[in-house]
């Protein structure tokens, strides 16, 4: 009996063992199946994602060099429609004449958007091949290694002797040419002819000197009791970039940077410019911020200093066209004004330098410079075109002269900081928070301190 029972137990044990083994096997098969299905699902998802990515990107992205075609990326400062359209048509023309080169056009709004985009692209190793940017970018981007010199191409360029010296200077840094101007925005002296007549002044003879400007401004100012209702001369009391003050400094023979690239803020030229402005500005001005609309545009001022482009709507207005005129800004020692400038630069990562230069050269031909002046009202940058440009509009000779005598922002790495300090300084003087001497010294010392001198 006992043996039988033992045998039964053994048999049951074996059966149980088999059952457990079977169950284990089954479990492992199920696990394997699970793992397999999970892996398959992952692979499928990855494959779908990859195909989606490849499909979506291949259709839109063009590589930098396809087998027979070189693609160059161009990023331009400013994204207004008229100028964007001009550049697109220029690119089309260029591509038709240069079948092996494709230009991928892109732009970004002026200011922060352009800087953010450009910084990210360069940081990500996707910097554009050709960049359209302003003077203030030169020193910092050269030092950051974003621009590469084009001196070798420039020295062989047919237009090298034709480009205005003042314009060429804007793109030159430490003896090398980095940028060539495609657009300039000089500050012009604008005045109202009708208001001149009304005040008994000759509308064809705008003020040429500082003294004349002061006298005219006083004559043209209209007051109701003590309140100025029409400014004789509109001058901003606050600004994002106080270049209106620079016009007086330049006209007095001053500069903000010396030959060694050091700041020269506290010099007699600036003090005299301040003294002149302080001598009459409160009597003739309606205060405004240069980021706002100039009172001259609103019809509340008889004279002002204004960006040539900002004046365009007024000159195009049939009711105002004959009432508004422009001239070179009045000066004390030297005929000069402030002139902004946008240039074409070659990105440091550009592998196809010859092709990039070919495009730059094409954009700077006489035909294109003239085309820009016709379609976009941009003053010319080449000396040989002055006469032809003058024929297009009665005021074009003034604009061309303003470009010729135009001076831009200092091409130094401290230029952005200078801009802030200069703005503060001008405001402090205009609002009598500091004396002229104190304000000049403060700005100079702060800047010197910040650049480690």
């Amino acid at each position, binding site marked *: 009996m006992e043996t039988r029972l033992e045998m039964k137990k053994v048999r049951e044990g074996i059966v149980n063992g088999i059952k457990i083994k079977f169950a284990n096997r089954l479990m492992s098969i199920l696990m394997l199946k699970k793992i397999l299905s999970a892996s398959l699902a992952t692979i499928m998802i990855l494959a779908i994602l990859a195909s989606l990515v490849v499909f979506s*990107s291949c259709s*839109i*992205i063009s590589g930098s060099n396809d087998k027979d075609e070189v693609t160059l990326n161009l990023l331009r400062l*400013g994204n207004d*429609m008229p100028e964007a359209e001009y550049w697109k048509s220029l690119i089309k023309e260029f591509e038709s004449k240069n079948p092996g080169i494709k230009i991928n056009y892109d732009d970004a709004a002026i200011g922060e958007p352009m800087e953010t985009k450009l910084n990210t692209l360069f940081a990500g190793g996707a910097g554009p091949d050709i960049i359209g940017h302003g003077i203030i970018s030169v020193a910092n981007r050269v030092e950051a290694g974003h621009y590469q010199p084009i001196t070798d191409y420039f020295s062989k360029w047919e237009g090298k002797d034709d480009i205005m010296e003042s314009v060429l200077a804007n793109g030159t840094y430490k003896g090398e040419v980095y940028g060539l101007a495609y657009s300039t925005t000089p500050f012009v002296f604008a005045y109202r002819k009708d208001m001149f007549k009304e005040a008994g002044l000759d509308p064809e003879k705008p003020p040429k000197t500082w003294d004349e400007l002061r006298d005219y401004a006083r004559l043209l100012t209209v007051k109701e009791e003590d309140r100025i209702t029409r400014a004789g001369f509109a001058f901003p009391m606050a600004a994002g970039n106080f270049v209106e003050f620079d016009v007086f400094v330049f006209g007095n023979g001053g500069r903000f940077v010396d030959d060694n690239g050091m700041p020269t803020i506290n010099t007699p030229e600036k003090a005299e410019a301040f003294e002149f402005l302080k001598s009459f500005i409160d009597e003739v001005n309606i205060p405004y911020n240069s980021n706002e609309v100039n*009172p001259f545009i609103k019809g509340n001022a008889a004279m002002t200093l204004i960006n040539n482009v900002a004046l*365009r709507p007024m000159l195009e207005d049939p009711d105002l066209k004959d009432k508004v005129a422009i001239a070179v800004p009045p000066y004390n020692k030297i005929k000069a004004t402030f002139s902004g400038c946008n240039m074409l630069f070659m990105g440091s990562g550009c592998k196809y330098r010859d092709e990039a230069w070919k495009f730059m050269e094409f954009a700077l031909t006489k035909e294109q410079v003239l085309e820009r002046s016709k379609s976009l009202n941009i003053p010319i940058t080449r000396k040989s075109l002055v006469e032809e440009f003058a024929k297009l509009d009665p005021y074009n000779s003034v604009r061309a002269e303003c470009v010729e005598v135009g001076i831009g922002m200092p091409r130094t790495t401290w230029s952005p900081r200078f801009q802030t300090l200069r703005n503060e300084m001008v405001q402090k003087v205009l609002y009598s928070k500091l004396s002229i001497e104190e304000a000049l010294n403060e700005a100079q010392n702060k800047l010197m301190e910040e650049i480690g001198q």
Partner: protein
Amino acid sequence: MDRKSEREPERKAKSKPGREVVKITGIKADRKDAVYKVMTWLMVLFFTVVIGFPFFIMVSVSLQTMQEIYLPELVLFPARPQFINYVRAMKNGNWGRYFFNSGYVTLIVVAISLFINSMTGYAFARIKFQGRKLLFILLLIGMMIPPQVTMVPLFIMMKSFPLAGGNNLLGMGGRGLINTYAGLIIPFIAGSFGVFLCRQFYLSFPDDIDNSARIDGCSRFLTFTRIYLPLSRPVLASLGILKFTGTWNEYIWPLIMTNSDSMKTVQVALTMFRDEAEILWNQLMAATIVSSLVIYILFVCLQKYFIAGILSGSMKE
């Protein structure tokens, strides 16, 4: 429960001494209610004016001529409303394309992100796995880092995306996902906030739901899709709306990721009304109104979810 009904027991308690007292207290309470109502209306009116005035100015400027905008005094009602500004604004660029791009990117982002965020939120809330807390803390840290900080690394990742835009398997040689829809969509499909929101929502579910589902033979995925997802309508609606407005209004990322007019989104295109010296305010305002219409319509239709989304996390149920 409104204020009147809240005060009912108080009134009843006071009514015991007699009819006279009831009357006086009743009048006083009615007066208080009336004053409260007037005050509420005045406050609402005040805030409506404060918030609505800029919008009114935006509409007004969109209908003005540039001469009116430049006038020294503020023009509230244009002499002749210039509806043509809307036509001009829409002709100033390829707006059909910009709207398509924004709409396409936004819809895809919303659809994918809702699924991914809810699934991740579910995992954090309902599945107990090792390192769950640590992972969740890492996720919360993600919420604290401003997007500007991660912008460049993210851009590099998109540029180096394997097998895209001429890239090889190691993500080199091409331009990756730059100037592609994928490049505009992928960075937005998952986000710490969305996961956090969903997790908080799923935490309030009783454990019995999971147990019942398990007894009925549901896997985790089936439990999520068959039980949790259908019950998630409120949180998904709130998250969807926030995601929609966030993606639609995104400016910096499309700005740096796109490099052609055909890929521009509405927000990037809105900057086109400015040149070196002038801003075409009337056209800019007209285009802004048109581009905001999508959000306004969405808000009107789903405003209760908007508010729920804003309040999410502020109350503990």
